[in-house]
């Protein structure tokens, strides 16, 4: 018993063939589970040139290695696939209760290829795995479909469901996979892949326990962390965050921080604690990355005060085995005139994508859009980025009022924004053109490469400004899933304290913020360490908000040793992280990706620089920083392709030979 099950399930929707396969221990020792097992499996099974929406693409649902063990905040599952947005590696993870359910069926992962003739769902428990007709739920939104399936399949155990909404069915490239009533593995276009396979849902109802090597030691670590989180409370109100942001944006120096502060924020407010702080500090991109707090000022951002949302929070919830509990359910009956009763507490990303990014100050419309997108299964970041793009197209006469079917797509026109989102979900009119995101829409409108088509490698970026934190810009540009805000940032690194465990991870020390804008070996090593540790986290099923507590609080290395019995050093684990990241990169290379094409848009790098606000005058030499990161990773400095020497060093000889 090593924390993992040692088996995966393969399902071919074209032939109906279902079979399980034993995974050798060496694979887990080299890649863990989660994203690692996912990329190891998909690299072998998806042929080069495979159409992301064709039968050769494989969609995996993979549990983390530590999920189901006595560790805490390790309950995330990973969707893995070839991305229809980038044509390269795609993954996205989500919390809730789906990750342990995979293991309770007796598998670490479920991998699905082929295309079904008719809509189906996959039912799995600890005894059977079967494809069942889904005609009666095809066309339902994700929440209604989940509720119906749960009733239909509820026998001895209430099943757990991952499902696509109508956006996935309509193969919108910016759709994700939904579980637990509106939580989404949103990024990279996994919903479109699932929709293209006519697979409405994966339904899990197993009851198998997950064993591990040393549960007693794992519990000791978990109890220690849980006690710290329980007693750490923030004795301030959310109204102070905008002032904190002003000070933060003006800081000239930075230094290592205590990640435990994050748990104080998360357990009380969740990610919305960054709403006003992000605007005033310069973390939040405003007006499609062309504005600042000077434009989206107090009369606007005051409506995003987290306390306004806490007033309508009716309950809090935790994901599986989470000691923090950042989730909440908010009452939106009044905000939506009774159209919806509840929604998940919106994340900061949604608040800003439909707040500052589109200059909207109407909180009610943000809450309404949150539930619309959750039910449709559409990625809020990409949807917000695409709406901001559409508004700027309208401003420049590229989209006319007639094309927008009478909508006046002006900044902050909240009713027009809601109407446009509905059109995107339904793929009606201009919404059909926009439903695949900025990359496809800009190509169809003939404006690819224009400053207002803001993406990294075709993926709309997260709501964190790379001009404020250049390291996040590096991750936006070098990660095999570009535009991803959850890989790393300078601020995350300062909270991790990796240098206390990993011999080669640089100690941040006290440093000048200005130094972050200069490409150098230390900055590159920090982003490399961050990438490797994030892949370890995703292999273990860990949550980003636990990861940033730091290695001395959320003790990933110790849990992995106790769970598996391996007794590896942190340096040895970081090699696993490096191997996973390198294979994610190699997946893209195998499928024809040029890593430099993932470079974030010029506007995100401050070219031209902003004329006002906390990020005034700041530019990020992103190309040089990408080269520097690649070199520090042991990849080719100019092309970003992992070198033969690095592949050999990581024990990836077969891949080195294939790509000779």
């Amino acid at each position, binding site marked *: 018993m090593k924390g993992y099950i040692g088996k995966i399930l393969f399902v071919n929707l074209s032939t109906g063939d279902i079979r399980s396969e034993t995974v050798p221990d060496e694979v887990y020792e080299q890649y863990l589970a989660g994203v690692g097992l996912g990329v190891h499996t998909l690299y072998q099974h998806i042929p080069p040139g495979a159409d992301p929406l064709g039968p050769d693409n494989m969609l995996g649902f993979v549990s983390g290695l530590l999920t189901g063990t006595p560790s805490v905040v390790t309950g995330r599952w990973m969707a893995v696939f070839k991305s229809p947005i980038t044509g390269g590696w795609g993954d996205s993870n989500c919390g809730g209760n789906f990750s342990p359910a995979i293991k309770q069926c007796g598998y670490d992962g479920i991998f699905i290829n082929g295309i079904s003739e008719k809509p189906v769902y996959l039912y799995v428990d600890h005894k059977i795995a079967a494809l069942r007709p889904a005609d009666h739920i095809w066309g339902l939104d994700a929440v209604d479909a989940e509720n119906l399936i749960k009733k239909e399949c509820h026998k001895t155990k209430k099943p757990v469901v991952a499902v696509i909404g109508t956006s996935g069915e309509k193969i919108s490239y910016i759709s994700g996979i939904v579980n637990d009533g509106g939580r989404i593995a949103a990024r990279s276009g996994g919903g479109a892949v699932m929709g293209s396979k006519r697979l409405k849902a994966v339904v899990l109802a197993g009851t198998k326990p997950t064993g591990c090597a040393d549960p007693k030691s794992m519990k000791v670590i978990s109890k220690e962390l849980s006690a710290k989180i329980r007693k*750490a409370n923030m*004795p301030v109100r959310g109204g102070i965050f905008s002032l904190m942001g002003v000070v933060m944006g003006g800081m000239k*120096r930075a230094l290592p*921080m205590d990640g435990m502060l994050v748990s104080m924020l998360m357990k009380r407010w969740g990610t919305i604690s960054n709403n006003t702080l992000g605007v005033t500090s310069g973390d939040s991109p405003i007006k499609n990355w062309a504005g600042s707090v000077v434009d989206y000022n107090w009369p606007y951002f005051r409506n995003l005060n987290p306390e306004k949302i806490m007033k309508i929070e009716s309950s809090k919830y935790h994901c599986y085995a989470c000691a923090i509990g950042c989730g909440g359910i908010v009452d939106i009956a009044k905000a939506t005139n009774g159209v919806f009763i509840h929604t998940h507490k919106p994340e900061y990303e949604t608040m800003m994508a439909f707040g500052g990014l589109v200059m909207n100050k109407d909180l009610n419309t943000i809450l309404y859009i949150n539930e619309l997108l959750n039910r449709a299964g559409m990625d809020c970041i990409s949807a917000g980025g695409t709406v901001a793009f559409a508004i700027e197209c309208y401003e420049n006469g590229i989209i006319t009022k007639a094309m927008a079917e009478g909508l006046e797509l002006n900044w902050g026109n909240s009713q027009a924004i809601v109407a446009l989102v509905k059109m995107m979900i339904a793929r009606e009119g201009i919404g059909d053109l926009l439903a695949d995101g900025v990359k496809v829409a800009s190509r169809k409108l003939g404006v690819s490469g224009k400053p207002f088509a803001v993406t990294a490698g075709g993926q709309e970026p997260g709501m964190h400004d790379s001009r404020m934190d250049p390291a996040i810009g590096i991750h936006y540009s070098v990660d095999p899933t570009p535009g991803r805000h959850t890989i790393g940032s300078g601020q995350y690194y300062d909270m991790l304290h990796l240098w206390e465990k990993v011999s080669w991870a640089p100690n941040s020390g*006290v440093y000048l913020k200005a130094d972050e804008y200069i490409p150098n070996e230390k900055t590159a090593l920090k982003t490399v360490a961050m990438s490797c540790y994030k892949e370890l986290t995703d292999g273990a099923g860990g949550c980003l908000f636990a990861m940033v507590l730091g290695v001395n609080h959320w003790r990933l290395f110790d849990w992995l040793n106790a769970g598996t019995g391996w007794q590896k050093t942190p340096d040895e684990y970081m090699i696993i992280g490096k191997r996973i990241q390198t294979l994610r990169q190699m997946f893209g290379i195998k499928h024809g990706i040029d890593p430099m094409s993932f470079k974030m848009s010029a506007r995100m790098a401050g070219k031209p620089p902003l004329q006002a606000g906390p990020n005034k005058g700041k530019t990020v030499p992103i190309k040089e920083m990408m080269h520097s990161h690649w070199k520090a990773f042991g990849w080719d400095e100019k092309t970003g392709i992992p070198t033969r020497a690095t592949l050999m060093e990581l024990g990836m000889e077969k891949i080195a030979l294939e790509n000779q």
Partner: protein
Amino acid sequence: MFVPAFINHENVDCDGFVTINDSAKMTDLYRQLKLPFPLRLSILFFVNYEQAKWNTRLKDGDTITFLFPVTGG
């Protein structure tokens, strides 16, 4: 110790450790850090992740976290 970026770091080593006298209180630590008086009033502090008071006594191995807007980064 996790201190704000603007504090004088000369008494804090590169790993964030500070040496204090036996039975020192938070007020003694502030004095040692040479924190200007007006700023002391606007800073929250935690000892072992619990909000502490000026007269909280410190002992070897305590983790002290200051919260003033943000502590850096």
